């Protein structure tokens, strides 16, 4: 018996994939609808391992989809809705063609909307999943919130984006979740941390809308993406507000109501949006004012883990400090400064903000308020200045957030040439690069270059010989133990002297001595830890663990370690070079000065 011949491409990669055309036929959808449902459901085209086989022998590059993906789509109830919509659209078209305008208007009014709540839940089974995918969503929503009504974008979409983004910013403010900010030429980069997920998004600079050239971006597709993302952001907002004990939806202003009958200009919209950000959100009754995070527990473990834990703890402390950085500080923003990012940042770290109440709505206090701590200005000089406040440039706020402390303002004063605005989004591998002391100072406000004081003035130089005499202040505990030991020694010597004075027969003496020896309390020697003992043990343990690295990863590990060593060495070498150079320069300077002094003395004596 000959078994039935298997058809080619009926199994394996040929059966796994499906061209877009086949998918359209299978789902009985138009291309437009298919694109839409794919975006909504998160179905993406695939790249096969072997294209020729996947395309069933056909050449060229076709858009392929997983057959399973398409079969999955087949079960979607929205599919039926889309088909119904098609019929509905035909009705509208017919009414228009027949010039039955009342009927057409009725159809347009009753145009059925598709509910996609269940898709959000399906694509993101947990809240954390949704947060993880929020980057794209936020960037697009912030971008669309600046758009006017466009041809291929539904009219209410930008309005909805505006509402949702402001709500999200409020949630970030309430959660104090903002971590990093960066002003780039592209826009403002923000990074927040929610439920352990870092979320990064870009907010464009506020310009008037620039018309997009039509052949660059498919607006219809982007609008579909935004349609899904607004839905997702709405539910994320709801969840965030509830976890923060806030009322959702928050009552912000009338700006986001649907009454767009009155023409409001763009500026007014923006002003209202910023004003909305300055309003504290209503808390649920019975909610605690401050939620203290439990302090991190450190479990005793060895080696690098403790180091990592220590680092983590420090990080947590820094973050805690950052969260309350602007607490109780009042800021006044001059009118030339972009308000939106500043209000968002200052409010999210606990500060209070206000602006010119004549120009924009939502100001909370006046410029003449004496309790204002900082006024943010972006102009070289001002006519009227208050003594009670600092006048700083906006970059100070951003740099302070990135440094996680209030930076000294002397470099950011009004009219000063600003230090460069560095990106906080640099990866850690860049740490293993030599940085000259000047750069290190920029990055780390606590870093003190060694020769700063010495190079400063003559007095310091004169007294640098005295410096050596100053002994370092010891630990008080160490001093105490030293004293105690000295006292003990003194006592023991005196006792010995006493013993020698007495006269007794040698036998008794011997016995007594023995007895005494048995009874004697030997002087306690304080347990002295070998200072390097622990380190040595740690090192040994570390080496042992190194040996346990699997053979698969051993080479990688070795090369990593070697690279680290190499970079460390380079840094060390360059630092040494710099130190030697600095010392040499200093000595030369000193010699020069001494020479000058001598010359002056000689000149005076002659």
């Amino acid at each position: 018996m000959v078994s039935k011949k298997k058809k080619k491409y009926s199994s394996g990669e040929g059966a796994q994939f499906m061209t877009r055309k086949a998918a359209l036929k299978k789902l009985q959808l138009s291309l437009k609808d298919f694109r839409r449902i794919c975006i909504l459901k998160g179905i993406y085209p695939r790249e096969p391992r072997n294209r020729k086989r996947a395309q069933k022998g056909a050449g060229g590059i076709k858009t392929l989809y997983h057959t399973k993906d398409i079969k999955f789509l087949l079960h979607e109830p929205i599919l039926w809705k889309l088909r119904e919509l098609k019929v509905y659209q035909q009705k509208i078209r017919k009414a228009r063609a027949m010039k039955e305008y009342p009927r057409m208007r009725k159809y347009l009014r009753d145009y059925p909307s598709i509910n996609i709540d269940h898709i959000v839940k399906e694509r993101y089974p947990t809240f954390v999943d949704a947060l993880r995918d929020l980057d794209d969503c936020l960037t697009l929503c912030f971008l669309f919130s600046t758009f006017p009504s466009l041809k291929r974008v539904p009219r209410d979409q930008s309005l909805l984006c505006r509402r949702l983004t402001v709500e999200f910013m409020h949630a970030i403010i309430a959660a104090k979740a903002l971590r990093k900010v960066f002003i780039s030429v592209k826009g403002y980069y923000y990074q927040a941390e929610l439920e352990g997920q870092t979320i990064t998004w870009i907010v464009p600079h506020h310009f008037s809308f620039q018309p997009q050239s039509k052949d660059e971006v498919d607006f219809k597709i982007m609008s579909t993406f935004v349609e899904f993302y607004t839905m997702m952001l709405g539910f994320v907002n709801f969840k965030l507000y509830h976890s923060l004990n806030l009322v959702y939806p928050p009552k912000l202003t009338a700006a986001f109501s649907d009454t767009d009958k009155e023409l409001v200009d763009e500026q007014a919209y923006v002003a209202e949006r910023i004003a909305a950000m300055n309003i504290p959100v209503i808390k649920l009754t019975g909610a605690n004012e401050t939620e203290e995070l439990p302090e991190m527990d450190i479990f005793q473990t060895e080696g690098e883990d403790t180091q990592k834990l220590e680092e983590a703890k420090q990080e947590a402390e820094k973050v805690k400090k950052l969260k309350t950085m602007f607490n109780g500080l009042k800021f006044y923003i001059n009118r030339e400064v972009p308000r939106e990012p500043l209000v968002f940042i200052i409010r999210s770290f606990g500060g209070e903000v206000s602006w010119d109440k004549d120009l924009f709505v939502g100001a909370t206090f006046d410029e003449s308020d004496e309790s204002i701590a900082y006024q943010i200005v972006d102009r070289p000089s001002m006519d009227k200045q208050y003594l009670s406040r600092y006048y700083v440039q906006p970059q100070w706020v951003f740099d302070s957030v990135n440094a996680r402390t209030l930076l000294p303002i002397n470099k950011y004063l009004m009219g000063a040439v600003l230090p460069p605005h560095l990106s906080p989004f640099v990866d850690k591998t860049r740490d293993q690069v030599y940085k000259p002391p000047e750069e290190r100072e920029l990055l780390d406000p606590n870093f003190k270059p060694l020769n700063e004081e010495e190079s400063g003035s003559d007095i310091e130089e004169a007294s640098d010989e005295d410096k050596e005499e100053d002994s370092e202040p010891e630990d008080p505990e160490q001093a105490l133990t030293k004293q105690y030991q000295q006292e003990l020694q003194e006592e023991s010597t005196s006792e010995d002297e006493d013993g020698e004075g007495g006269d007794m027969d040698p036998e008794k003496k011997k016995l007594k001595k023995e007895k005494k020896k048995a009874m004697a309390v030997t002087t306690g020697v304080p347990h002295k830890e070998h200072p390097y003992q622990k380190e040595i043990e740690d090192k040994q343990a570390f080496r042992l663990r190194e040996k346990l690295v699997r053979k698969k990863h051993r080479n990688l590990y070795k090369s990593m370690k070697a690279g680290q060593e190499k970079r460390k060495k380079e840094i060390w070498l360059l630092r040494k070079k710099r130190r030697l150079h600095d010392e040499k320069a200093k000595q030369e300077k000193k010699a020069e000065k001494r020479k000058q002094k001598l010359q002056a003395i000689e000149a005076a004596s002659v």
Partner: protein
Amino acid sequence: MPEIKKKKHVSKKNKKDWRKHCDIRDVEEFLEDQRLEERLGRFDSKPDEELFVIDTQGGDEIQEVKTITTVKPCSAKERKRQKLAETPKCFEVLLPTSKVKDPNAKRNHVNPSGTKPTALSKITEIKRLKKGVYEKKVEVARKNRKIALDKKRRAKQNSNTFDVDLWGKDTPEAKGIPQTLCDEFIPPEAQLHNVLPDRRLRPKPAPPKTVVSRAAVEAPHPGISYNPSFKEHQELLQDVVQHEQKLMKREAHLHRVTTGMFSKVTQQERENQWREEMSTGLPQPHNPANDPEPESDGEYKAINPPVQNKKKDHKARRKQKERLAEKERLKRLKVEKKKITDLYKLRQLQSSIYNVHKRQAEEREKRAAKRAVEETTALPALNAHKTPKKEPEFVDPQQLTGDLRQINTKVNLLRDRYESLQRRGALAAAKLMMKKKKRVKSYFKSGHKVTDQDVDRFLKRSAGKK
């Protein structure tokens, strides 16, 4: 000879067999005739005029004349008119098919009950009108319509309210219970009756790796800061320069292998070439300079002089044999010797093999690492169109004012997003085709044309009127 049919003997014992083998066609025919007569009437009773027609015209000539008259086809409109009189096809079913007449010739028409207002109903109608029932009915209808509309509108707005904790456990909506069943009066059994199972039968395959692993918002280059440090900005510019150089190199290469491959020829040279090509094979005028020089002094020489087959003698043969044998012997000796020396060479061989293997392993590793790096950054090929590569952002040094107030940008963030989606494989690359506007040729309908003559005529006429 006519064939004599053999009579077949069949059993007609039972009723079934009887029926099977009895020819009852004639009886049935008769009955059929009778039924027909009943329907159409008997032939004998009908007058001849009904059954026969006197052919008064006769012959084929007449028929021809008839055809000529009927040739004229009627227009579509006329055909429609003709059809107007016919009973529509859809009503044909309602017509009686039988020719049997209704035995009751005069039947009374009976209206269905309720169609005619009775005296009693008239009174009640008046009463209800007085009561204002009809106005109320209209009112209720209007109200209902409004409620329905409101409901529709609310359903539409529902999509923007976000009042469900989607990731909560306890809400019925989260379980997938339809909204119509979310009511406190509906028992939980009824609510849960139609809920889909948690786990779908056909789970969705995992999304492509590129979509999952690649960051949506990449960490920005520190050089694109609005007020970058000198070093970082220089690094950014270096990146841009390198990128641009790569492009230029590629372009130069393309030029070299395409346009540059063909040497340029002047017009004159080309003509000469053409002339030469066209005149190949044609008899050339005799040129004595081209004649080959005679080598010898006119002596005859055959092209293929005869060859003599000189045989080798015995000695030569023997010598040759010996030579070959010696050669073979030496060869064998060499091989034997090599076998012995190879034994001593074993370590060297081993080490050389080891080295080769090591080198190959290293190369393999390098290749794998390179492939891995490429895989993480490779652009997905999802379409015949190429996915746009990520280009380093260029910040013009003159654009940097170090001032937040005067910041200006040329970056199109939307395009950036769009291309990022394509680079992550969430979208297939596409070349957007704009719809071309149809170029409509405009012309005047002949009757509506206004020429100069028309204008003149109009002016004349208007002048004459005055």
